């Protein structure tokens, strides 16, 4: 039973991909709970289902079966429009490849999710953008275009974009994947700072060094949640 502090609750979640009469079980009976203010890292080898799970958590994809409660509300069967609204208001995404829009300035990129909210005055939007960019130390680059920034700077802008809407949770998919170690560490410190300030974070990573930054680590293998020991054992079996 979910407590009042539970933000995400998943029960027996499955995801099957069908291609050319081949069924691929990406997720098989996942159970997971994430509380408000928690910092969870999801790790596992390539193809274990981390990114699929994150996409379902972020309402970018729908599960084949099981239950998903966000803020105690079932969200697995919502319409596209409702999912868009919830993504906009409750979820902040940070992607591996930053996914900033090349045509828009830093400021416009950060403002983008806010423009999808009906009725938010322009002044409030500008205030939030400035605040988010200041939090990631990128306010001085507001007028720049993404192509004029380094990879680390682009990812900080992506974090600011995720923060600007004050979401319930930040979902980060391999946020350091396209960065060198120095910039990767900087982004990890930034996420740690945000967590300390109260943000809920769920991060997918395959790098154990970065997973250690999280409060809790969830291990996935072949679409299932396993313990750290089980993961080690299964990985050794595969490698053998």
């Amino acid at each position, binding site marked *: 039973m979910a407590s009042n502090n539970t933000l995400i609750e998943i029960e027996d979640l499955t995801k099957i991909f069908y291609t050319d009469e081949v069924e691929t079980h990406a997720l098989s009976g996942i159970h997971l709970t994430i509380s408000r203010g928690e910092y969870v890292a999801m790790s596992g080898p390539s193809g274990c289902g981390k990114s699929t799970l994150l996409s379902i958590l972020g309402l*970018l994809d729908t599960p084949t079966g099981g239950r998903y409660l966000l803020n105690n509300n079932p969200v697995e069967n919502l319409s596209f*429009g409702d999912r868009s609204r919830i*993504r906009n208001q409750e979820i902040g995404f940070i992607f591996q490849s930053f*996914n900033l*829009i*090349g*045509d828009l300035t830093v400021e416009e990129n950060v403002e983008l999710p806010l423009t*999808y909210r009906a009725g938010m005055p322009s002044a409030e939007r500008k205030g939030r953008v400035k605040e988010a960019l200041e939090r990631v130390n990128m306010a001085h680059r507001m007028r720049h275009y993404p192509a004029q920034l380094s990879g680390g700077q682009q990812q900080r802008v992506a974090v600011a*974009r995720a923060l600007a*809407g004050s979401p319930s949770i930040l979902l980060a998919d391999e946020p350091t994947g396209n960065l060198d170690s120095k910039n990767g560490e900087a982004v990890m410190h930034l996420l740690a700072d945000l967590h300390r300030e109260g943000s809920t974070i769920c991060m997918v990573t395959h790098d154990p060094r970065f997973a250690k930054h999280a409060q809790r680590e969830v291990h996935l293998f072949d679409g299932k949640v396993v313990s750290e020991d089980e993961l080690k054992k299964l990985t050794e079996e595969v490698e053998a």
Partner: protein
Amino acid sequence: MNTLLQDLRYALRQLRRAPGFAVTVVLTLALSVGVATAVFCVIDNVILRPLPYAHPDRIVDVMSRSPSGYTQPASWPSYKDERAQASAFAALAGYADYFDTTMETPSNGPVEFPNVRSTDNFFQVFGVQPMLGRTFLPGEEQEGKNDIAVLSYEMWQNYFGGDRNVLNKAVKLDGQTYTVIGVMPAGFRFPLNRRNAIYTPIHLDRPWMIRRGDHWLRTVARIRDGFTIEQAQADLAHVFSDLGQANSSDEGRTVRLQLLAESVNSQSKGPLWTLLGAVLAVLAIGCVNVAGLLLARGVKREREMAMRVAIGAGRIRLLRQLLTEGVLLALLGAAGGVLLAWTVLDLMRAFLIHALARGADIHLNWTVLAAAIAIAVCANLAASIFPAFHLSSIDPNRALKAGGSAGVERGQHRLRSGFVVTQVALTMVLLVVAGLLLRVVSRYRHVDLGFDPAHILSTGIDFSPARYQGRDVVADFYRPLLDRVSHLPGVRAAGLISLLPIENDGSNSDIHIAGQPPYPPNQEMLAENRFVSTGYFDVFGIPLHRGRALSPSLDRPEKIAPTVVVNDAFVKKFIPAGLDPAAQRIDDDDKQEKWTQIVGVVGNVRQNIYEAPLAERDWLMDELPLKDRAGLLSGMTLVLRTDGDPKLLIPALRNALHEVDPTVPFKTASTMTEVVSETLVFERMESWLFGIFAGLALALAMVGLYGLVSHEVEQSTRDIGVRMALGATRNRILGMVLRRVAWMLGAGTVVGFALTLVARKLIGMVIYFDAQKEAGGFLLLALLLLVAGLVAALIPAARAASIEPMHALRAE
């Protein structure tokens, strides 16, 4: 050579691999090159090619004008004086080209031909030798020597089977025997629009030859070697001045020489050049489309090019490869374009023959084919040069890292938007011109003609005056004819008129109303003259406004003073307010008792569709003296008002005519609706062509827009996925794409308006417009363009909105 063949093979393989792209480019090129070639062909044949005469730069059209500035041909005595006194001309010839003649042919019965009647020096002007026999000798315009004829090549071929023994054969023209003395070579015609003509010396009744006040003879001349056109002009002006001093009828007449080459195209030259401007706009739109397609394809081929660079291909080598592909596409486009041009010219032929003096000469030739290939290659090179340079200078490292696409560059994005804005702007200009022209045609079609053209059938009647010489043509021919046709089932009224409304004007006289002060000098006081039967007014539904109608029982030839009815325009022009028009007389004779009496006033009918109704007076044909009837009534038009479809009556009408007189040829009968339509042939051709070009431009622009939006959606899949991940709904994405399209359309429309205003002078050659007055129409066209553009963008926009964010991000 080996490398070139390799490039060619590779280019062919590339096109086979992307058939959709290849077909789109070839079709776009074919469409734009095809219309450009067709119009270039018209311009080449009509304007650029020299006239089919020897040294055409020495031949001038002699345009004489009345004191008030109206075009006024020469009278016979004036012409004779001009010819005798002017020294700057190798030949100054007179001709009348408005006659038709009927010839009895063994196989086709009586057939009517255009008959150009001229002075004896007519052929000297053109310097073209006959292919058989001879042309006229000096003095052969005199009576007794002038029963000779020169055949045009077409006539010789069509009616004499190209018989080389035709010389000295006798032919009957209008019942009179002529001897064939020569045959002109193929291609010779004068006037240029008189095809299938027969040339005879002047044959006219004596009164026409002696009166200086009768202006009917057109003149054309060859300037003598050693004289410039200015000197010739001065020489003839001097002669005109001398004649004006010597004869009151010639007083104030002026003359202007214009090179014949300019004169024959004076009406059509401007519109044709403007038409060329229109097809160049279509060509530009096609080029921009192809450039857009090549750019889009270039993005897809970046990885391939990067690979080639990575393994050592130089920039020049890549450029050559890409340009070979471009030339191959161009040649395919040129082939399609020539095929289209041939089809377009074939479809335009009927228009061209009627609308242009040299319309019948228009055909594809080697110059035009070479031009088509050059246009296609240049157009495609212009379109492919930028994408080729872009691709050949690609950074292999970046392109290969990007995994096949270096992504959408802001510069490219702007460039492609610029393409769409350019296309929309040019389309807007063409739409505006086409819209204005269509409105002009529509306005003329709906102008108040003074009658309802529906259910009126007309056919010309021409016969030899000699046939009815000494007989009463009214009693022996016209009355029986009217009696027969008016009793045909479905005929409500039948009548005759000497010049059909809408079709012609210019048979006029100076008018002075008895008792009025003399009119100011140089003020045009002409009224049109018509001979009619009473049934004419019934057929055209012309109301009687005052006085009485003409009546065979009242208006008899025995009366001393002739009687006429006049129209409202006549009353407005000549009769002062307060006077009863039906009680006025026209002092048109030396003897007061012979002054013409106005007995009634009827409603206006347009004589010429372009002008408000002219003043007109109508005589009853029954009133003409018996001796004048055969001459004055030898050319009339029979008109019928019918209950149903007028064309259904044609067989019965032909029978009725031939029952009365089997020697009178039955001319093609036309409904008045067709007459109106034929009169507007040039306007219809212009509006038709501009309409097609504007439609083509619109289609090409929409294809370009569709291609651009599709390409951008494809290139922006990731961005759209990101937007959706951040909360954008499908409607928002749809709105975003359509807003961008609307912006481009809006910008294109504004630029188009600006271009229209800038090009007002060029457009003015076709049509004058007042931008302020047309604002409503322009807005409507802009709206049409906006709607068409949004519809074109709807499919790719909907595709963008249906992108699954998960898939979009996974693809990245």
